[in-house]
């Protein structure tokens, strides 16, 4: 039995959460529903679906201060359009998925999803200035603020970012914005040698280029480096990068001015409709080994070359082989997975230990009733 709720005010949301929790329901929190397959499935006989669709307002866009306050259910696409009208952006560009409105900001923050802009601007956690949440006892609490510099109180914004709705419901976030670059240009270079791709990535990562994005891809035995410059002199800077790629022996080096499609493709590579997506975090200098492992497993990869973060699309049957071939110490998380494979894998692969124990204590304090997205997260939190 599933009940659906779509509160339209913070108070309603808090009351709904408290009532459901009191009645012993598990509350499945969802925004646009584009990433519901991530994490473990919620297993509970009595489930309430709590949608954030009724909380979708852009509450503030403080243009002069480069900040915005947005309700969780606001669609990312609509938010970015609103900001772009004033020449600004939220520097968070994960793929937004399909659906009526696509991903919501609440969902992107709750899953700490990101895209190529992470290279320059950091992840979701680095852009959240403040947060308002509802806890399962109905408490509505706020942390952080609306200014870009603030150290008063604990940073619950970071705690809730990437918590997969297991601590409570994100009602709204205040975020830092950045100027939308008017001119961008991307330098591309390719190679069939994973080590050559890795070496080029390292050279660019260590150079003072201030790239907006520095990505890598691997498709069908061929790798590529994609470096995007943005700003008043974007083309000249990307031209300089292209020279560096040539000097490093990369092939098919080119400079692309109309570069939106190139980056749309990178972002799209972070999702799969029919195969698995494995997110890998490895040390940046191990990129060559990661690419080799992906090549051997017939996977395709997109990722942040300087950060060691990659997304691999792969046949679910080949996941174990891929993971075995990765450099030791690499961290993997399973994101997308075809329906028929759901439940086959532990998506998180986080072992028992003091860190997981502490996470359970955090969960116990914020959601003592265990009502919010139970079982979805690491260690079945």
């Amino acid at each position: 039995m599933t009940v659906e709720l779509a509160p339209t005010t913070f108070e309603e949301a808090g009351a709904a959460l408290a009532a459901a929790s009191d009645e012993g329901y598990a509350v499945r929190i969802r925004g646009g529903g584009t990433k519901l397959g991530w994490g473990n499935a919620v297993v509970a006989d009595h489930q309430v679906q709590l949608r954030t669709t009724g909380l979708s307002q852009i509450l503030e866009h403080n243009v002069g201060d480069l900040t915005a306050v947005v309700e969780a259910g606001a669609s990312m696409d609509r938010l970015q359009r609103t900001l772009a009208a004033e020449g600004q952006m939220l520097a968070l560009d994960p793929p937004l998925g399909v659906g009526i409105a696509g991903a919501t900001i609440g969902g992107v923050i709750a899953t700490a999803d990101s895209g190529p802009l992470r290279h320059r601007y950091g992840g979701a956690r680095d852009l959240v200035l403040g947060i308002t949440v509802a806890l399962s006892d109905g408490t509505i609490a706020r942390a952080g603020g609306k200014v870009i510099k603030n150290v008063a109180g604990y940073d619950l914004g970071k705690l809730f970012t990437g918590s997969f709705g297991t601590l409570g419901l994100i009602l709204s976030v205040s975020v830092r914005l950045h100027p939308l670059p008017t001119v961008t240009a991307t330098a591309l270079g390719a190679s069939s040698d994973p080590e050559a791709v890795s070496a080029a990535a390292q050279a660019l990562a260590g150079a003072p280029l201030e790239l907006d994005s520095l990505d890598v891809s691997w498709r069908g035995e061929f790798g590529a480096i994609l470096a995007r410059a943005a700003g008043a002199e974007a083309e000249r800077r990307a031209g300089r990068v292209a020279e560096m790629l040539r000097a490093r022996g990369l092939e098919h080096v080119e400079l692309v001015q109309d570069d939106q499609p190139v980056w749309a493709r990178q972002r799209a590579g972070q999702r799969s409709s029919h195969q698995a997506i494995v997110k890998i975090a490895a040390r940046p200098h191990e990129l060559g080994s990661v690419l080799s492992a992906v090549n051997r497993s017939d996977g395709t990869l997109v990722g942040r070359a300087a950060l060691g973060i990659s997304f691999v699309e792969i046949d679910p049957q080949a996941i174990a082989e891929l993971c075995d071939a990765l450099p030791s110490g690499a961290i993997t998380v399973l994101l997308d997975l075809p329906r028929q494979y759901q439940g086959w894998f532990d998506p998180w692969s986080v072992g028992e230990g003091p860190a997981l124990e502490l996470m359970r204590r955090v969960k116990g304090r914020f959601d003592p009733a265990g009502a919010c997205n139970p079982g979805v997260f690491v260690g079945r939190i």
Partner: protein
Amino acid sequence: MSRDVDLIRRLQGICGKEHVLTHAHALATYRSDGLKHYQQTPVAAVLPDTGEQVQAVVRACYEAGTPWVARGAGTGLSGGALPVADGVLIVLARLRRIVSIELADSRVVVEPGVSNLAISRAVAPTHFYPPDPSSQIVCSIGGNVAENSGGAHCFKYGFTTNYVTGLEIVLSDGSVIELDRDAPGYDLLGAFVGSEGTLGVATRITLRVVPTPETVRTLVAFFEDTGAAGEAVTAIVDSGIVPGAVEMMDRLSIKAAEQATGAGYRLDAGAALLVELDGPREECTTRFEQLMEICVEAGAADVRVALSASERALLWQTRKAAFAAMGRIAPAYYVQDGVIPRTRLAEVLRQIDRLASEYELQVANVFHAGDGNLHPLVCYDAAREGEPARAEELAGLIIKACVDADGSITGEHGVGVDKKAYMPSMFSEADLEAFHRLRCAFDPRGLANPGKLMPTPRLCGEVPGPYRQHPLERAGVATRF
């Protein structure tokens, strides 16, 4: 007392007798941090040499039920490292090893006692560590992590929290936890940075470092008043320029600092704006020309451009000397650390002026203009009756003005003991209670840096067990109402 004696013996066993200070004279150094008007003598100050010793010390305190405070270089400005009277002070000054420099991964691993500047030096010349508090020559990275320190370059580069990618922390029960920014699970790393020593103590820190910018260009523009300078900052930011630093000084702070440094700042100016651009050379050159135009259009009476590294250093010296130079204006001052949305700068500065004349005190303003972080210096003379109290009251009203303008009570100094009374002006009881939940998960007995950050002491209750479904419910025989 005998309990203290037992604990001290145990601490001596862990760190060696010479590294456990108990004599009042030896403890005098440790009675306060950078905020001298709060003083407290701990039972003992202990100086462990390794992470393992820190863990053993914390464990011993836990077993004795003794509270403790971790201290780095003691440069903090909120009393965050103020000892507790019945507690132990854990001084991390001996943990100052740079564990590894891994530039291929743009990172460095250090112990908490390493100074902020030593990190940039260790990765120079190709890289640097951006967050640079004014005290960077001496302040420790462990303290930076505890306070989420900022500095002059935050507007472009961000804060400590944006650079910490890994931590080894010791919780108050003595357990050791490794936190990695890329590991799945709650972002406990993000929650720990800036927690002011109340969640535990970091014993090993991994930091991201970035390539040293190719070009740096610096100018100082002089304006009639802070309002006009504020307008210039708005115009700069609106144009899409992201300066490495934008610092503003008002008439009073220019006067004090110029006397100290003789850098050539104009004494007839109502405000000086120091703007620095850094980055790739093409970008920097083009943007710098735009910047100069914007300053002139915004009414700058004079724009001075640093033509060499030494000229640049001189321009910065005046800004950095501002706090110390204030001694030329008044014997003492309160420094505040409020933040406001930058667009409300003119309004809040006018309010500060009004309050200052009402209280018959001088307030100098030196601040990080890009991110709206004000450092009003409320000048007073302790020898004049009632003046310190009046100054404190005025400082409180300035903070309130910041909160009322949708800002914050602290941008980089932390809450500590100094600003905890202002926490309720910014956060509701429910907000504070939510903070407390985090504290209880990390430190249920409240032994780590008690009495800081939160306005009133609180105890952690037991966690009620998670809801379990009744077997009848599971069988569908009964439901709850």
